[in-house]
């Protein structure tokens, strides 16, 4: 505060000293030149105006007063005296004071106005500079000017910040060249040379290598000023972050492309916008149940397929569907859908328009050369791609798997067949006995018939009865042979409605003699009026025979009476067959492994009987298990599902 006052006092002292010198000088000059009052007044007026430019109004008015006193002392008679003069001289002096006062006041008014304007302009300039600097900082873009003729380079603070330079507004072109990444230095020099020669606008991107091995990417645009072709102005922007984001995006895109291309699954990018239009029309026509509508209009489904255009496919698709020829990748997906798979395509369309996230189904697809494959078809309905009318489809070729399954099924059937044949071998004696019974009856009947005929009066009534019995016995023998043949031949299982009680009876007839031989009594307790099960007759024979033979063998060492109970009963949605024996039962340790292949407790046993039973029962959609009977012995239980047509009886 004191310093300010002191400064102001010094300034006032200097102004006043200057005023004193100026006025004294004016007075001296006027006296020396012998000027009279009017001329001297003019000189003083000029001096006062000049002094008024130096300082405030008060000093100026003081100088006006001082000038008036000088005029009164030196130039108004009586000279060298302040004594009163003539009236007209006093009027002239008053006019001088008034005029100079007015002029001084005007000068000050003018000066204060000018000062305000200047202050305003200065503040505005400051604000603009601050605003520009802030804008540059925010945008990460700096501005620069480059004079080619003078090789002068000026830049904004933001440029300096980007370059991490402390050089101020004139860094020099060599400094800039030094910050360019060595790998980009050649290109930078070429640009400088070219611009100097051609003076053409340029735009380029380069890397900077900053202290601490920090790398930045900058984007530069510049052009010459219209009226000064050697003066370039430009903008310089730090694009490191944008570049990193773009790189990340590119890498992600690259990864996606890699996945799309390199996966061992077939991928399709499809344009189904045309399908949307068709579905829109169908809905506009008032169709509510699209699934039924598509099922009833296969032509419409084919049309939608033709409107599903192939945009892109991966290499796996090219080799799987296009015979390895990428040149053929075009057109619609229609050629790849056999008629039999229409419903899968239709279901995928319905899934897409009901905004399901995805759809998958196993179906047959066709390759371009007409081969049909088993495929796992998956469609992904990502909202952003669906909105753009695009669809990503994945197809996995499961032909091999389906073929392997079929082969497994065949092997299983062959194995069951082999087991049946082996079983027939073991039961040969029993079967021969079973056939021998009706044969013996036929022979006896035929002989009787002969004798009735040989009588003096042939008894034709007896002959007729005998022939009827022969026919019945022949049929019985034929039925046994047919069952044996069914057991022996290998044919694919036929799952049809089957009367389980009849099948159980037939199976037991194979074993009657065998059971007798082993001193085992078999009791069948079959529930009447059971619904039919869906099963293959021969395989059910095989299961029952197997379980009964097992039970018989389990009781080989048990004391009499040895009894097997075979029963059937309705159980929920199925029919339950049980084979119970009075043998020693099955130990807990064996129970768990009983249905495993090659597990056997019998000397000379193969350990295949029960595993085959299980595989047959499971192929029928049924279950097999084993329990202990409370009274001792084992209880094997087979449950088979009821045939559809009999399900409600």
């Amino acid at each position, binding site marked *: 505060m004191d310093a300010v006052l002191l400064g102001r006092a010094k300034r006032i002292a200097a102004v006043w000293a200057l005023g004193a010198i100026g006025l004294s000088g004016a007075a001296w000059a006027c006296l020396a030149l012998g000027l009279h009052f009017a001329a001297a007044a003019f000189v003083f007026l000029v001096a006062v105006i000049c002094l008024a430019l130096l300082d405030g109004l008060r000093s100026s008015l003081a100088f006006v007063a001082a000038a008036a006193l000088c005029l009164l002392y030196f130039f108004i008679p009586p000279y060298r005296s302040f004594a009163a003069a003539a009236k007209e001289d006093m009027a002239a002096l008053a006019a001088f004071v008034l005029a100079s006062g007015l002029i001084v006041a005007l000068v000050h008014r003018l000066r204060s106005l000018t000062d305000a304007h200047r202050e305003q302009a200065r503040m505005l300039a400051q604000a603009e500079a601050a605003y520009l600097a802030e804008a540059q900082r925010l945008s990460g873009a700096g501005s620069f000017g480059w004079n080619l003729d003078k090789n002068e380079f000026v830049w904004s603070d933001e440029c300096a910040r980007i370059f991490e330079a402390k050089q101020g507004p004139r860094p020099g072109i060599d400094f800039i060249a030094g910050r360019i990444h060595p790998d980009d230095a050649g290109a930078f020099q070429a640009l400088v040379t070219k611009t100097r020669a051609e003076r053409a606008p340029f735009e380029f991107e380069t890397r900077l290598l900053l202290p601490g091995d920090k790398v930045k990417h900058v984007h530069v645009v510049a052009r010459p000023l219209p009226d000064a072709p050697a003066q370039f102005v430009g903008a310089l922007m730090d694009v490191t972050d944008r570049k990193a984001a773009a790189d990340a995006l590119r890498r992600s895109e690259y990864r996606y492309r890699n996945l799309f291309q390199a996966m061992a699954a077939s991928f399709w990018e499809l344009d189904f916008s045309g399908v949307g239009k068709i579905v829109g029309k169908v809905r506009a026509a008032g169709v509510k149940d699209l699934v039924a509508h598509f099922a009833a209009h296969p032509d419409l489904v084919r049309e939608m397929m033709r409107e599903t255009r192939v945009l892109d496919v991966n290499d796996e698709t090219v080799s799987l569907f296009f015979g390895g020829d990428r040149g053929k990748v075009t057109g619609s997906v229609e050629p790849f859908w056999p008629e039999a798979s229409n419903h899968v395509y239709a279901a995928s369309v319905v899934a897409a328009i009901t905004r399901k996230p995805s759809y998958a189904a196993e179906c047959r697809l066709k390759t371009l050369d007409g081969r049909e494959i088993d495929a796992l078809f998956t469609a992904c309905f990502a909202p952003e791609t669906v909105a753009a009318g695009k669809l990503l489809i994945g197809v996995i070729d499961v032909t091999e798997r389906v073929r392997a399954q079929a082969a497994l099924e065949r092997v299983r059937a062959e194995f069951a067949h082999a087991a049946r044949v082996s079983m027939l071998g073991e039961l040969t004696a029993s079967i021969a*006995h079973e056939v021998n019974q*009706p044969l*013996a009856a036929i022979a006896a009947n035929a*002989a*009787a018939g002969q004798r009735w005929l040989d009588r003096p009066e042939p008894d034709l009534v007896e002959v007729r009865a005998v022939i009827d019995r022969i026919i019945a016995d022949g049929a019985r023998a034929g039925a046994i042979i047919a069952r044996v043949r069914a057991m022996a031949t290998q044919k694919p299982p036929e799952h049809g409605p089957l009367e389980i009680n009849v099948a159980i009876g037939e199976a037991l007839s194979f074993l009657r003699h065998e059971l007798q031989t082993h001193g085992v009594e078999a009791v069948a307790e079959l529930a009447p009026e059971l619904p039919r099960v869906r099963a293959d007759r021969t395989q059910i024979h095989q299961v029952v025979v197997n379980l009964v033979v097992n039970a018989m063998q389990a009781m080989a060492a048990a004391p009499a009476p040895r009894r097997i109970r075979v029963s059937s009963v309705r159980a929920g949605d199925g029919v339950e067959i049980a084979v119970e024996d009075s043998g020693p039962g099955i130990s807990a340790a064996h129970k768990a492994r009983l249905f495993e292949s090659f597990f056997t407790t019998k000397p000379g046993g193969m350990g295949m009987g029960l595993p085959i039973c299980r595989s047959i029962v499971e192929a029928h959609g049924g279950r097999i298990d084993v329990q202990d009977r409370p009274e001792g012995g084992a209880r094997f239980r087979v449950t088979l599902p009821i045939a559809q047509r009999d399900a409600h009886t």
Partner: protein
Amino acid sequence: MLVGVEPLIAIIDDDESLRTALTGLVRSLGYRAQAYPDAEAFLAAPHTQAIACIVTDIHMPGLSGIDLRHRLAAEGVVAPVIMITGRSEPGLEARVLASGACCLLRKPFDAGALDACIKRAVARPG
């Protein structure tokens, strides 16, 4: 043999069709025949008429033909027994003959052989 009355032959077999066939054959040979499904049924039946001969299957549920022969012997029944079998197990014939059966026939058997056996049996003094 009483004049005018044919000898009565008992037929025991668990297989119904063979039992019927045997009954018919025996009747065609000129005898009366009575059929039983098993040995127990035969033993339980009241024998008001003398049985001239018994034709029985060996392997049946319950008592076998051989068991039946032993049981009859124990009861003092002397009617001759003809046995029929479908099997060919070793030692069977010896056991059959040891039991006192007069004939063993194997299925399917020749009607002439059965005729001869029955003839021999009924001709034998009681």
